[in-house]
């Protein structure tokens, strides 16, 4: 019999899962982490089913008591730091409470201890806004160099990246969906590059646009789609694949309509 209340453990496990899934984690990793949390606090008999938009968790105690929780996931972001921190925390929990149980040198991690560490991860401060904006410039700049641009194109791509990052951040406050945000971003990139090409001249606008588009490409969706499918989670794999295709279609739509508009107007 465990000393922790079964509903408390279920809530904590589902909170862990929510944190990782909202930061862009793979679903089979989320299932693994939730299993680690439940078995770490004395409920090895648990099942979870994680999709990209919801978590289902069912725990059974030794006495036969069953608790089931469902959590709907609304927001999606990318925060790889949170994923790695939570992963480390659950692995530590599993190591201290299950594998090294009875070892005198290791004290098991207590419920409050785990909860406090999870709260710390949850409210860990992200990078300041200006650092992210600057990196939004660095990435397109160096990508345009990588694809054969000159230093002038690097400069234009850098400025463009900073501007586009600021505008996309402002648009994010309006809760636009992913398709629209990527389409608007690609359109802005093409517009900025064509403007620079018109007023400064002597440059290959294609290299600037490609550098900017690399900021939007769905790398996370592709990676997670394949790794989830290979781990046997076909539902999440399909969902991520569709997301990747949609984002690519959005980029193509935004860039294409802006190219056509530019060709018609100028």
């Amino acid at each position: 019999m465990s000393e922790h209340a079964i509903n408390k453990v279920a809530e904590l496990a589902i909170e862990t899962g929510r944190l990782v899934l909202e930061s862009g984690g793979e679903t089979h990793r989320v299932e693994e982490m939730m299993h680690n949390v439940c078995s770490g606090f004395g409920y090895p008999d648990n099942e979870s089913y994680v999709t990209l938009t919801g978590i289902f968790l069912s725990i059974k105690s030794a006495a036969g008591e069953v608790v089931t929780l469902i959590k709907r996931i609304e927001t999606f972001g990318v925060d790889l730091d949170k994923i790695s921190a939570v992963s480390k925390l659950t692995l530590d929990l599993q190591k201290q409470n299950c594998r090294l149980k009875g070892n005198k040198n290791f004290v098991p991690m207590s419920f409050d201890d785990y909860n406090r560490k999870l709260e710390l991860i949850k409210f860990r401060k992200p990078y300041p806004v200006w650092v992210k904006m600057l990196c939004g410039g660095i990435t397109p700049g160096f990508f345009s160099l990588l694809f054969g641009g000159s230093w002038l194109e690097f400069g234009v791509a850098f400025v463009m990246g900073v501007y586009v990052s600021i505008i996309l951040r402002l648009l994010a406050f309006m809760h636009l969906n992913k398709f629209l945000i990527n389409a608007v971003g690609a359109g802005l990139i093409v517009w900025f590059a064509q403007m620079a090409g018109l007023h400064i001249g002597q440059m290959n606008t294609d290299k600037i646009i490609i550098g900017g588009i690399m900021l939007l490409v769905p790398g996370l969706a592709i990676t997670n789609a394949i790794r989830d499918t290979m781990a046997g989670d076909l539902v999440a794999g399909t969902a991520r694949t569709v997301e990747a295709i949609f984002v690519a279609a959005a980029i193509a739509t935004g860039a294409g309509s802006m190219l056509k508009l530019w060709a018609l107007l100028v």
Partner: protein
Amino acid sequence: MFSVINKLWLMQVCFGGIAILGFSIRSNIRGWKLIFTSLGGAICWGLYLMFLGWSKSLLLSVFLATLSVCLYSEVMGRIYRIPVSVFVICAIIPLVPGSGLYYAMKAYIDGNGMEFMAKMGQTLMIAGTISVAIAVMSSITNLFRSMIRRF
């Protein structure tokens, strides 16, 4: 294969590393992990150029570069006990065919149907190759892990 290593290659590798550094900061990676993710991006681009110079085949070099960078990520993830996908997500970004997508769209807007089909096909092939390489490497590591557990 090593004949492509010169000053230009080194510069390209550095650019790839710095670009991925920016990308990882945007994905909110902190601390010492930044060094390893940007190193992953640099390795990915450097190996891609090397394989491209050696084999002259676009898809084969994308495949081999992705495969090696996934191996790197699996090793790093195992050593530092953080999810492997954190490294893979950042490292494969230079190979993702954003340029093919753009050129295909541009050809379509210009009314050049043949060019559009060729570029679109190439884009899809590269995306498929990256996926297959990630799939192969994750299956191999799963196999390897289950073999270790058995013996």
